[in-house]
């Protein structure tokens, strides 16, 4: 018997082949697919198409930046000579030096007019800095700090023998300059008001920052009035009542005699009633991306005409000379993408130009010296 005959006898009928795999698309690997080859004509057309879309888009975005009116003044710097502005405080922490900065917009400003402070050379993005916080404390936990959090906040867990709440570097390098809008009228002659609310993320206020568990406050009762006796008793931890507007409040912070809370570290900015829920503080706690950054301080919801005098009284407390940084105040409007952005537009039109250039290069090559598709002369069978 020849081998062929043996093979014919060995092969079973299809109906008897129990191990035969299914003859469907999945098992036979023929699920319908598209096998694209890079057709140069398609690519050249697409590159031109893309270039034609991107270049005008880039220029349009650039033109939007011109609508933004931005006024900036650096008022303290590490090599700043104290001049007529008198804002430089050198290394005097919490100097409380007051100075006035005047601004004259060079164009009409439409609401919202946003006021920022800008710091340079401050690495909020350094790993040790970013980790140096205790999110549980910020959300209201008192005591029972876990070792992980304690290690992260080291060495700013205690100040002397007082526990710091909130601990860590981020909370205790809080920017504590104060800006007050003292002079300015809007387009209708109404005095300008700078609001310091609405500057932080609502979700941060709702979910991530809370007063310590057990905190409470109430208005001073009529029996004691606004005197020290308002805070009498173990129920209240204040030493004197807190005045806000024309009301007096007494409050209770747990373990206040062994803990230094935020309102005690920054009494000029943080009221004891809000503590860590103060919006300036929440804005500061959201660490910035780069060493030069700006953070929202306040905003004005009124239109400002060109040339109006805006006066800001700055109370300088924050020392920047130690890290060779600088402080600036920025007053700006915005467009649909944000503030003045000098990189956004150029990205589009430079890539657009690149697309057009590449498309032109390939088109010329394809017209004058084309590499024909499926050109068998490129195939070689012998090894080199």
């Amino acid at each position: 018997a020849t081998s062929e005959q043996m093979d014919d006898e060995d092969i079973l009928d299809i109906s008897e082949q129990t191990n035969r795999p299914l003859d469907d698309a999945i098992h036979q690997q023929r699920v319908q697919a598209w096998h694209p080859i890079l057709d140069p004509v398609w690519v050249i057309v697409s590159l031109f198409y893309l270039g034609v879309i991107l270049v005008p888009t880039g220029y349009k975005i650039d033109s939007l930046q011109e609508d933004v009116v931005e006024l900036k003044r650096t008022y303290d710097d590490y090599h700043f000579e104290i001049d007529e502005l008198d804002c430089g405080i050198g290394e005097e922490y919490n100097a409380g030096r007051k100075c006035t900065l005047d601004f004259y917009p060079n164009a009409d400003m439409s609401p919202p007019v946003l006021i920022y402070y800008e710091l340079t050379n401050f690495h909020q993005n350094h790993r040790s800095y970013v980790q140096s916080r205790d999110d549980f404390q910020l959300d209201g936990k008192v005591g029972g700090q876990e070792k992980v959090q304690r290690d992260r906040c080291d060495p700013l867990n205690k100040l002397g023998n007082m526990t710091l709440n909130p601990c860590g570097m981020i909370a205790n390098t809080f920017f504590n300059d104060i800006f007050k809008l003292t002079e300015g009228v809007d387009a209708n002659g109404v005095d300008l008001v700078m609001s310091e609310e609405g500057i932080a993320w609502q979700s941060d206020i709702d979910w991530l920052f809370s007063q310590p568990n057990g905190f409470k406050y109430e208005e001073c009762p009529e029996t004691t009035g606004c005197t020290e006796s308002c805070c009498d008793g173990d129920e209240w931890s204040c030493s004197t009542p807190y005045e806000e507007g024309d009301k007096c409040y007494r409050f209770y912070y747990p373990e206040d005699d062994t803990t230094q809370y935020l309102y005690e570290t920054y009494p000029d900015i943080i009221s004891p009633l809000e503590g860590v829920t103060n919006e300036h503080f929440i804005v500061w706690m959201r660490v910035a991306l780069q060493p030069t950054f700006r953070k929202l301080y306040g905003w004005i919801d009124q239109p400002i005409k060109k040339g109006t005098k805006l006066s800001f009284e700055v109370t300088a407390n924050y020392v920047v000379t130690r890290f060779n940084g600088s402080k600036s105040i920025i007053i700006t409007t915005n467009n649909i993408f944000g503030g003045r952005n000098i990189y956004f537009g150029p990205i589009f039109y430079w890539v657009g130009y690149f697309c057009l250039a590449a498309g032109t290069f390939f088109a010329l090559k394809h017209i004058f010296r084309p590499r024909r598709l499926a050109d068998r002369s490129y195939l070689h069978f012998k090894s080199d």
Partner: protein
Amino acid sequence: IACRVSPKQKAELVNLVRHNVKPEPITLAIGDGANDVGMIQEAHVGIGISGKEGTQAVNASDFAISQFRFLESLVLIHGRWDFFRLSTVVLYSFYKNAVQAGIMVIFNFTALFSGQPFFDQWLIASLNFVCGAPIIFTGLFDRCLSKDYVRAHPEVYKATRENEMITVRTLTRWCTLAIIHMCTLYFFTVAPSRNGGGMTSAFGGLMRNEDDSRPGDGEGGDWKSVGTVTFTAMVILLAYKVLYESRSLVHGRWPAITFSKANDSFVNRLAYTWIGVTWLSVAFYFIFIAAYQLIGRLGASSLSPFADMANHVLSTRSMNWMLIFFVPIFGMVFDVVFKVFSNMFYPTQTQIHMEIEAMEKRERKQKERAAKRGAVETAQEEV
């Protein structure tokens, strides 16, 4: 071909070839009996034929086939496909993680090299979950040249033998593109988010109908927000990259869901490539961050810092959408330009074969259409 040899001598034969030929070749041994076990184990690829002489050879082998003639299909078709799939998966997997790590390295230039990650920790951990599906589908389904074409032109196997997919040229291309993509993703998302770019667009853009008393909600120049935007752009770019590096995009047949015959079930009609890229990668990522951001609402934890991040990144800043849409396209522009350049000036053998296959398929379709038209015309004439 060896016969009338003892099992030990068969193994020695394979050994001789393996260690005395320079450069060391990849050896394959095929046999069907217990006396072939030695040589099957000695060779790189051992193939056992199951059948009359029992299952000893099959038990010891790497691959088992039932007839000797299947060897052609195994080596030429499936071995070749497997080579391309494996190479693509390996190269892409390194590339994917290199891009993520590289972006973090570039970021550290501005973070004093303190080792600060650029992305939220759980986003980093999720990379291989949200970006893993597309390349797995490529590894399963990618077909470089069809079965018929390879059988008709077996010389295409030469590229496989010469390791065409992992050469200095290929690795240079992947490394260069990884670096270009890292830089594109980082600089094109970070530069527009610095200073003025990170400012709120309150009263305009996507904030137009939001609460007018809270402009701060649109602030997005902070570390976590920009990192999330870059990560989103990266997920989309990695999805585009898989589509670009695949040689077959499985689109299945529509409709995929059918309730009829067993052989034609929806498993055979699904558009695997598109499902992998859209639902299992990009959509999965968006669903993941939408869910992850909610954990912060349950109270402070190691997961709470991400609270509401997806909302802020995606629904308060129009610039983010411009970046998420365009930056991956910018990344792919470089890819396309590179490949077209290499195709025009230094095409690979496989590229030429793919073009020939496409041309032959086109010509075949035209002939069929012409034949149909001819048949219709003759039918009409007869009528």
